[in-house]
């Protein structure tokens, strides 16, 4: 490919003045959470992708809760000063959309025969304090439970080779994947505002179960 005309006058790259060391990076465990979603249907978007719509189930799943993997409700945080995590909050998913992609090469093979390479996902959910949680009861004076809004987007990668033919509702066999997302937290509550002050990343497991439900679990890290 030839260089575009608008770059014709740009100076050549001089790498001699550019750094040869990495920037410092900080990463600290923040919290873990799980959620369950119901599938609403599969829609073919184009020749190479299939969209799975999702919605919240009528009642939360057994693992739809915020927790600390090692127990407790405090984490050191990036600055090691100690932070409260919203342990025990119920996770209430709102919705999510997943777009499964085939390989970039537009081969002549029908989509059903192509390998499912990865999927992009985005969704929204809420962490909500439960009235029975004595630790948080009474912290808001207006009677409303404390809520933390979470929006996320990222990718999932199947753990085993899977074709689009296996992607049905419900699937004959569960499809399991690793998930990598960037969650974005919003809250005005001072106890949990630290979650909004840093970018976060989350590593997770994701599965489309034989029942057609999505079951996911994530570990969230704050990064600096």
């Amino acid at each position, binding site marked *: *490919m030839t260089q575009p005309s*608008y770059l014709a006058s740009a100076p050549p790259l001089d790498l001699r003045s550019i750094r040869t060391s990495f*920037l410092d990076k900080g990463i600290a465990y923040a919290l873990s959470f799980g959620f369950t979603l119901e599938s609403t249907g599969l829609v073919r978007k184009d020749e190479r992708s299939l969209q799975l719509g999702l919605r919240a189930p009528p009642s939360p799943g*057994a693992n739809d809760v915020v927790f600390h*993997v090692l127990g407790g409700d405090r984490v050191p945080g990036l600055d090691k000063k100690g932070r409260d995590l919203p342990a025990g909050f119920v996770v209430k998913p709102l919705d999510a959309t997943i777009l499964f992609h085939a390989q970039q090469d537009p081969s002549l093979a029908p989509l059903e025969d192509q390998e499912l390479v990865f999927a992009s996902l985005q969704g929204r959910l809420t962490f909500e304090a439960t009235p029975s949680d004595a630790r948080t009861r009474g912290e808001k004076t207006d009677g409303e439970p404390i809520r933390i809004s979470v929006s996320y*987007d990222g990718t999932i990668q199947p753990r085993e080779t899977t074709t689009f033919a296996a992607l049905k509702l419900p699937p004959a066999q569960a499809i399991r994947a690793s998930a990598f997302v960037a969650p974005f937290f919003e809250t005005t509550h001072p106890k949990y505002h630290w979650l909004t002050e840093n970018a976060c990343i989350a590593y997770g497991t994701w599965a489309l179960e034989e029942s057609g439900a999505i079951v996911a679990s994530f*570990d969230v890290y704050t990064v600096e």
Partner: protein
Amino acid sequence: MAAPRGYFLDRALLYLFSYNTEIEHRTQKIGIVPEGARYNESARVGDSRVYNVFREKSQGGLGPGFKAVTGRLIAGFDRALYRSDDVIVGDVQATIETDDGELIGTRYRATAYLRPGGYAAYVAGIDRAGTENVPVQAPIVITPSFETQASAYQFLVTHRCVGFGRADVIKSEIRRLSYDIYAMT
């Protein structure tokens, strides 16, 4: 309720590439909006570089056939929102042209924390952090995703990435950004 998972999930970061970008001095100060204060900033395209810290020609860790990403930014624009809770949230779009002429688009959110009271001090013009001789270095983290049709760089499309960055700040204005981009694996 079932007992929560008692172990951490696997996590790793794979270094992909780095980039530096100079920021245009003429920040578009949109001003106070309902969510905070909006500032639009552009990259100085000719001075922006995309490179590999190791000067590698291929992308390690993904097997053979994956090219290292080197080139330059040919477009970059940030709609930065200085929120009243002292957090800066950037909405960035940029385009990389690689040395072999391929185009890679990216869009991402950037997050940085000012300090308690930082928003009020910034919009009032009280904060004047950093000088020409001694810029303040502030950490900024981005979570980019990439788009390209180039087969040599498809690994960028299939991975979610995180960028650890530093901003050189002069008189409370960002003048240069430098990032190391890693893939979450």
